[in-house]
């Protein structure tokens, strides 16, 4: 269903356990062991950071809304759970995902424009032939079984803003955390509202007005340690241990904890989400853009995937 997450294809076909996801990926690697050995790649989270950067660059040139970029990121993640990355030209896949996501999110761009921007951004790896992108669109849609409607956490965040009296800063921090979660497996693991609650929780405990965080992804280690603190303070407020210090945000965390306790929401899932994003922020510290780019470019060139 289009409006109902519970009956959506997203929940029925694109929500996995960690084990299932691991199996899928292992199967892909096993099918192409030589390929995998010949072209080592950075860990998936680093690849995701790289893809995210490339999508942002293309999105900026095209003036694409954040939600469409999020949709594109999820398409890419779904696609690469079915197709070995070394068999594809990631630049073409990225551009195709953006092109398709824009159509789905009602902000379409002409295929020629997308191709010409792709050509400008990645001249050595991108064909000016629009039919390549059109062909890749078939590939992408087919691997996704035409299941293209995506439920994002943004809507839950907007809906819950009032419930938890989020300030402007807290809301935008939560929004940034949601933006960042597309670089993790979380969108394939948890429901959008679970992710939204995780983002709200983190935003409340990080207290953006005090730490002066602009974008969660830009700050790195600071965030990770603050998030650890966040998690433990959340656990405390869940168990009802009163905090001596703390102002408005503390009260809000308490309110969130009470609200969760009264709801049917799986609190363990939120804790797990929080840990996942924290560990992502830690891993982000070691991200080496140059190395990641070179590894990708190497197999694309060597295998003639840019042709």
């Amino acid at each position, binding site marked *: 269903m*289009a409006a109902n997450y519970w009956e959506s294809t997203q929940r029925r076909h694109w929500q996995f356990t960690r084990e299932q996801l691991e199996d899928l990926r292992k199967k892909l690697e096993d099918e192409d062991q030589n390929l995998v050995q010949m072209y080592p790649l950075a860990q998936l989270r680093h690849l995701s950071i790289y893809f995210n950067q490339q999508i942002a660059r293309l999105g900026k040139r095209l003036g694409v809304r954040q939600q469409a970029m999020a949709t594109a990121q999820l398409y890419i993640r779904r696609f690469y759970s079915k197709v070995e990355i070394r068999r594809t030209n990631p630049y073409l896949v990225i551009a195709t995902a953006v*092109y398709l996501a824009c159509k789905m999110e009602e902000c379409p761009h002409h295929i020629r424009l997308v191709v010409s921007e792709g050509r400008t951004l990645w001249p050595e790896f991108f064909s000016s032939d629009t039919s390549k992108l059109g062909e890749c669109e078939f590939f992408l849609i087919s691997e996704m079984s035409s299941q293209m409607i995506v439920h994002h956490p943004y809507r839950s965040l907007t809906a819950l803003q009032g419930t938890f009296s989020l300030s402007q800063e807290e809301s935008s921090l939560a929004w940034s955390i949601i933006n960042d979660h597309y670089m993790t497996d979380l969108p394939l693991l948890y429901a959008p509202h679970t992710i939204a609650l995780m983002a709200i929780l983190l935003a409340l405990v990080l207290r953006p007005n005090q730490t002066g965080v602009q974008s969660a992804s830009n700050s790195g280690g600071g965030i990770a340690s603050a998030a650890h603190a966040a998690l433990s303070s959340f656990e405390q407020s869940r168990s009802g241990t009163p905090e001596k210090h703390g102002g408005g945000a503390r009260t809000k965390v308490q309110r969130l904890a009470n609200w969760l306790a009264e709801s049917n929401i799986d609190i363990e899932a939120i804790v797990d989400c929080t840990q996942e994003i924290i560990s992502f922020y830690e891993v982000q510290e070691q991200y080496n853009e140059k190395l990641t780019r070179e590894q990708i470019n190497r197999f694309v060139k060597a295998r003639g995937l840019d042709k």
Partner: protein
Amino acid sequence: MSLTSNPPSSGGGPSSVSASRTQTLKRSVQQAFDDPADRGIAPNTGYVSKVRVIDRYKVIGFISSGTYGRVYKAVGRHGQPGEFAIKKFKPDKEGEQIQYTGISQSAVREMALCSELSHANVIRLIEIILEDKCIFMVFEYAEHDLLQIIHHHTQPTRHPIPPATVKSIMFQLLNGCQYLHANWVLHRDLKPANIMVTSAGEVKIGDLGLARLFNKPLHSLFSGDKVVVTIWYRAPELLLGSRHYTPAIDMWAVGCIFAELLSLRPIFKGEEAKMDSKKTVPFQRNQMQKIVEIMGLPRKEQWPHLVNMPEYAQLTTLSTPHHKHAASSTSNLEKWYYSTINSASSSSTSNASLGAEGYKLLSGLLEYDPEKRLTAQAALSHSFFNTGEKVNASCFEGKMEYPHRRVSQDDNDIRTGSLPGTKRSGLPDDSRPGKRVKE
């Protein structure tokens, strides 16, 4: 090639294809699915579908065509139960060569929405196969559609659709609408040709080619799609230039369909004003005129936002020459309704039993103010459905027999034949087969 450097294991070469081809099929029909020119330049490179349409389905014949492509009737080759309607989107041609040119936004929407939706009163998608630069959407097959049923009741002479059938059709149609609207889906092109009926009497809303989600920020009707709801079923707020889509536009169309089930003719059969050379959308004067003739002019007392409509000024230019005074304010809908349901020549199948509740439902759907118009949810609990005869789950409870859908064996006939089916709105040939004559 860019996508994958290994040929997929499935697929099979052309030789296996011809082996499985059935002799009894006319070459021309099968050709639509198996055109060597479609096969791509080099068979072992690029995207190749894992599933082949002709391996999974046996095409029986051609059903209809539209701007998007063609619809074929098929049966499964592997014991899939039932029959299927396969909608083939035609690829764009650049010169003689068929190229990947990017899938149209409306096809993308239809693919995505149909994959998501699941309801007894919405046509069911079986699968989508992307093969040889073409998109094949495989749907459950429906033997009839409302256009065909309405037409049948005008042959050889007019005889009304039985009231129990009308009631069941309306209930099922509203039920499907309610589901779509609850899921933030607007159909935007409801008309008799798009409402399918299975041989078991189940009503299925079909052709979601113009449907879209309305929880997304919408571009205006004029900036986005070129084709919009078929003019006879177009809601007055759209005719008056509203750029906001709401579920109410579908409900107006449902009202028009209800009226048509009763009278066997489109209730507001206007003529479409074409776009001029500057591609500005003209005011659909003739269509609005047709509505005003029956409904009277809309008044701001009954429709507060009327004065804000972009084409509001145009209303003063409308006239009803025959009875100027009557047209200015009062509605003739009630008169239209009673003369329609009582007009049956043979009293045996008269629709008179639909009575006053039928009028209330009709006027609730054909309400000028979109905010006051009945919603699908409200219409379903309307007293029309719990007064008099019970609503049948099958609309054929009255043992009606309708001719089967025409299935042609010859692809070449399509350009001449105007078959009922999924013809897209706004086309010059959108008129009814055999109904071109002035009524």
